[in-house]
C-alpha cells in the first residue's frame, strides 16, 4: 500500500521532495490575496501537524482508494476527493482532473460547484488547476476574485461564491497525471498546514491513480480483445462452412464471404453470424427430425 510501502515512483518522488524541501521549504505562502506556487515540499515527518489525524486520514485514504476495487478509476478517484475534503482544513469541495493528450478533464467532483469552477477554467484556458498541471507545482490562491494570476477566471468564480483554491499536481514518474483541486467558499481558507496536508495527500493519490489506470487499461484491453477474438471466431467458423461446402481455400472462402456481405450490404461479421446460425438451425432440425 502506497502510504506504508512506497513503490518506485513514490520513492523516487520522495527523494525529489526531500531535495526540494531543503531548498524551498521556506517558500512563503502569499498572504496578500495573490496566488502562490511552491514546489512539492511536504514535511519529512508529521511533527508540528496534527500527526495522528493525518496518519489516520492517509491510512484510510490508502485503504479506501485501493478498496474501490472493480468500481474502477472513477470510484477510486471519488474516494480520494472525498477524503481530501475531510482531511484538508477549510475545504468545501474537491475534484480530480486527469490529463489526457494534455487536456484536462474533471473526472470526479464532490460537489456540483466544483464541476462548475473547473468547467470555467477549462473553457477559458486559465486557472489554478491548469497552472498546477502545467508547472507541476502546488498552486494556492486565498482570494480568487482579486488574484492577478487569472484575471478572467478569478472574478467569474468569485461571483459563484468560491474564493479560495488549492490545486495539487498529481505527479507520476515521467509526467504530471493531473491535479487535485480543492476549493473553499471562504476567503483565506487554506493556511500553510492545509497546503502541507494537501501535498501529503497528493503523493499516494498519484500512485493510486497510476495503479488504477493500469488496471483500468488492462480491463479495457481485455474486453476489446475478447470481443475481437469472438468476432473473429464467428468469421472463421463461417469460412469453415464455406470451405467444407466448396472445397475452396481459406482465402477464397474469405473472398466469397466478403462478396456475400457486400451484396447483402451488411458487415462481414453479420453475414458470418447468419451463415453460422443457419448451419446450427439445420443441425438442430436434423437432430430433431432424427429424434422422432
Amino acid at each position: 500500500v502506497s502510504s506504508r510501502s512506497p513503490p518506485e515512483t513514490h520513492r523516487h518522488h520522495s527523494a525529489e521532495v526531500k531535495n526540494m524541501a531543503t531548498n524551498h521549504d521556506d517558500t512563503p505562502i502569499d498572504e496578500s490575496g495573490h496566488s502562490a506556487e511552491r514546489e512539492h515540499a511536504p514535511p519529512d515527518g508529521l511533527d508540528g501537524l496534527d500527526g495522528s489525524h493525518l496518519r489516520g486520514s492517509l491510512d484510510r485514504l490508502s485503504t479506501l482508494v485501493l478498496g474501490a476495487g472493480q468500481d474502477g478509476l472513477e470510484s477510486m478517484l471519488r474516494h480520494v476527493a472525498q477524503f481530501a475534503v475531510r482531511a484538508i482544513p477549510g475545504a468545501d469541495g474537491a475534484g480530480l482532473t486527469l490529463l489526457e493528450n494534455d487536456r484536462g478533464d474533471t473526472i470526479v467532483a464532490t460537489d456540483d460547484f466544483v464541476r462548475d469552477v473547473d468547467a470555467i477554467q477549462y473553457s477559458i484556458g486559465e486557472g489554478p488547476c491548469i497552472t498546477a498541471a502545467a508547472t507541476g507545482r502546488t498552486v494556492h490562491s486565498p482570494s480568487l476574485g482579486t488574484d492577478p494570476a487569472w484575471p478572467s477566471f478569478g472574478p467569474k468564480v468569485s461571483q459563484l461564491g468560491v474564493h479560495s483554491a488549492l490545486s495539487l499536481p498529481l505527479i507520476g514518474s515521467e509526467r504530471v497525471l493531473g491535479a487535485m483541486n480543492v476549493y473553499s467558499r471562504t476567503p483565506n481558507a487554506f493556511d500553510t498546514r492545509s497546503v502541507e496536508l494537501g501535498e501529503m495527500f497528493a503523493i499516494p493519490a498519484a500512485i493510486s491513480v497510476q495503479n488504477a489506470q493500469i488496471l483500468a487499461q488492462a480491463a479495457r484491453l481485455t474486453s476489446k480483445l475478447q470481443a475481437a477474438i469472438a468476432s473473429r471466431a464467428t468469421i472463421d467458423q463461417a469460412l469453415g462452412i464455406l470451405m467444407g461446402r466448396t472445397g475452396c481455400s481459406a482465402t477464397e472462402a474469405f473472398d466469397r464471404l466478403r462478396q456475400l456481405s457486400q451484396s447483402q450490404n451488411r458487415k462481414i461479421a453479420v453475414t458470418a453470424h447468419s451463415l453460422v446460425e443457419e448451419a446450427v438451425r439445420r443441425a438442430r432440425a436434423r437432430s430433431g427430425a432424427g429424434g422422432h
Partner: protein
Amino acid sequence: VHAVNLSVEFSAALAQLADDERLVDADIGRLLVSLAADARATIDSLTGVMVVLMVEGHPIMLTAFDGEMDEARVTTSVVLPLPALAKVEPGSMLILYASRPGAFVDFAADAALALGIAPDSVTLDRHLPAPGQLGAHSGLHDVVLINRAIGVLLGRGLHPDAARVEMQRRAWMSGTTLGEAASALIASLEHRSPLPQ
C-alpha cells in the same frame, strides 16, 4: 514512454484479426501500448507487458516490450489474474516484466487490495520468460484453425458442442494437439470434391 513496441507476433496477430478493416476494432494495438506506457509511468524499470487470453482453453499471447526484446534484462515479473478484471476464461492473465528486482512488490500488494483478491493470487517471479519465449507464437493461429475446423463440422450438420467434442476426439485419436487436428481436417478438404450446391 519511449519505444514500447508491439511484438512482431502480436502485430501479425493484429493484422490477422483485422484482415478486413471492418472485422476488428484497431484500437487493440493502441490499448496495449497505452497499457505498457501507463505501467511504465508507475514502475520505471518496466520492460514489457504480456496479455494471455484463454479462448476455449487455448492461450493467446500478446506482448508489448520496451525497445528490443531481451529476456536477459528481465529479472522480475508479476502476474494478475484477468478474471478479477473482466469476464474472461480462467487462466487468462496479465504479466508485467521489469529489470529491477523487487519492482513489483508494492504494485502486487496494491493490485490485490484493489481487486479484492487474495494477495497470493498476484504472483511474483513465477512467470519469468524462458529464452525465446517473448517472441513466441501468439497462439492465435491455432484458434483460427480450430474455429475453421468447427465451421467445417457445423456445415456437416453437427451442433457447435458436438463439433468441439469431435475435434477433441480427433486430436485424442491421432495423439496430436487440437490445432494439429484442425489443420489435418482442413487439409483433408483439399483432397475432396466440392459438395453439390
